[in-house]
């Protein structure tokens, strides 16, 4: 009775084992496939972009990168203006965003009462999830009129009249331009940088800070002499993460940058970024035209730029090795 009852059990167990082993193999294979698919996709995008960009690279050679002319009528294209605009707006944005993000992170880790940390932390993370078109519309309908009617006339008439630095702040007050674009970008990257900074500040072993407080150090001294030196690399990594986002931002920038293919010396002057130029011109580019190829070449350059920036950020943000 008992043996009769027992005998089928092992075989059922074995069948279940065999089945689950096969299931495991299929599952492992699928996961591996998914992982490799990402690599292939990334490689394919780079190769495809490069092949599409080849006619432009052949026509203009390496000087494409520093050519300042973008003339669709004469079919002469150079990438300098959008590269310049991309870098200037991103750097200006970081100059505005980093101090504020640092303040947020410092407040959240050192000053804020426990009951406030969660809500503010979550709010910062939610800011990062706002779609960029929302920032674009907010920029165009709220910030641009404000800049055009109040901020820029004031600055242009005062600082713009100064010798030596005046040219940086001169020109007609359109409201749009490099500075406005940088402002919107700053708002967009603050959550990224603040969230990263908060996380890395939290990695500082409490015993370090407590010892410093114990010998009478102020909050500022603790920040400056203990937390920052301990997390310096990771903080820079977080800033690079923000830079990566600022470089590739398209929609919001397109609304407010002024979209002019000229080098603007004034920070209020209109300009263009790589991403916004590509987005604007793509729809009306004929298949097989040199213009389309030049746009793909711009895309390739942006890809390489972002890739380098993100690689640096990953490198700096890698987990600390335990000694």
């Amino acid at each position, binding site marked *: 009775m008992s043996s009769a009852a027992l005998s089928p059990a092992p075989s059922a167990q074995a069948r279940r084992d065999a089945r689950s082993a096969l299931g495991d193999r299929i599952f492992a294979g699928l996961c591996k496939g998914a992982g490799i698919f990402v690599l292939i996709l990334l490689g394919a995008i780079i190769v495809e972009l490069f092949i599409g960009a080849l006619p432009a690279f052949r026509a203009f050679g390496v000087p494409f990168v520093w050519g300042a002319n973008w*003339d669709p*009528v004469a079919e002469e294209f150079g990438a300098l203006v959008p590269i310049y605009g991309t870098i200037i707006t991103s750097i200006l944005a970081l100059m505005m965003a980093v101090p504020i993000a640092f303040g947020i992170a410092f407040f959240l880790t050192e000053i804020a009462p426990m009951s406030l940390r969660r809500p503010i932390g979550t709010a910062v993370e939610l800011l990062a999830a706002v779609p960029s078109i929302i920032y674009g519309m907010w920029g165009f309908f709220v910030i641009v009129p404000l800049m*055009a009617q109040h901020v820029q006339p004031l600055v242009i008439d005062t600082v713009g009249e100064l010798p030596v630095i005046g040219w940086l702040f001169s020109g*007609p007050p359109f*409201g*749009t331009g490099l500075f406005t674009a940088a402002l919107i970008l700053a708002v967009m990257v603050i959550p990224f940088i603040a969230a990263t900074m908060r996380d890395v500040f939290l990695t500082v072993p409490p015993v370090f800070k407590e010892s410093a407080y114990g010998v009478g150090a102020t909050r500022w001294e603790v920040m400056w002499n203990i937390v920052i030196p301990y997390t310096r690399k990771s903080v820079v990594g977080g800033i690079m993460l923000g830079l990566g986002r600022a470089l590739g931002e398209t929609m919001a920038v397109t609304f407010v940058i002024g*979209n002019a293919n000229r080098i603007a010396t004034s920070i209020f002057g209109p300009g263009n970024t790589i991403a916004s130029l590509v987005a604007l011109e793509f729809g009306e580019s004929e298949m097989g035209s040199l213009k389309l190829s030049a746009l793909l070449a711009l895309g390739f350059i942006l890809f390489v730029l972002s890739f380098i920036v993100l690689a640096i950020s990953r490198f700096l943000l890698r987990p600390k090795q335990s000694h």
Partner: protein
Amino acid sequence: MNRLTSLLGAAVASLALLAGAASAQQITGAGATFPNPVYQKWGEAAQQAIGVQLNYQSVGSGAGQTQIRNRTVDFGATDAPMRTELLAEHKLLQFPTVMGSLVAIVNVPGVADNQMKMTGEVLADIYLGKITRWNDPRIVEMNRGLNLPNLAIAPVYRADGSGTTFVWVSYLSAVSPEWKDKVGIGTSVKWPAGTGARGNEGVAGTVRNTRGAIGYVENAYAVQNKLVSTQLRNKAGNFVSPSHDAFVAAANNADWSVPNFAANLVDTHGATSWPIVSPTFILLPTDPKDAARAANVIRFFDWAYTNGNKLAEELEYIPIPKAVQDAVRAAWRAQVKGPDGRPVLQ
């Protein structure tokens, strides 16, 4: 029980109706954004009238040309006419559907709609960055009645490649040799001055926000949004206001007997013609693989020529002249042939 059967009957009947709607003759098109509102309106009306269901994607003229070259749609649509050799190479018939017109819009304190007078030469010099203030003698001279301020002119242009820009710079090139020489014609050009904005709404918004701004939009857009537009001097030397009659005058004075109907309606003759009018075009394969679908496309636009004028005018478009429509109808019969070599339209 009776109620149940009648309910069931109703359900079956409505299902059949749905199936009938789904099997309506579908045609697909893609291209220009400028005529999109009228194509959508025609599509709705034609579905009820002749059972042809239009699926039109307004993806831009350039993309429309690409799609019809690859034959991924039944017809393409473009604002700028396609070059003759390209039409021949890709076996396409080009014909106009409606016309639109461009106006200059301004934001100058104390200047109301249709008050300011402008000439093409001055517009070109403004966009070249040569005239930079509103109290420039050349602007003041033709606007004696207006008190123009000493205010910087901020030219605004379409930053996205667009058929609107193509028409605008065609006009500037027609009236200003310097513009033609330095900048030229294209769906996007190298602007010597000013700032760019995205789409009609972007240009209108930037002009509204910026004191001293000047821009260009389609008349339909200016009318619907009550923008401040200007008068323009036409080729005959008269200042005309942007009105339906002025647009129609331009269409009637244009020379339509050119290859592929690519009539130039910019800076036309005629005492009352508005100087910036342009047709928008359809690109139809002359060697359709599916003769029935091509026939439906032709039936659709034939219906639109006969019955769609009122809908077009409600949306501020201008129907093309009757004689041109008849010439297009003749071209359909003569040129569009199915795989068997016979005209698709019997």
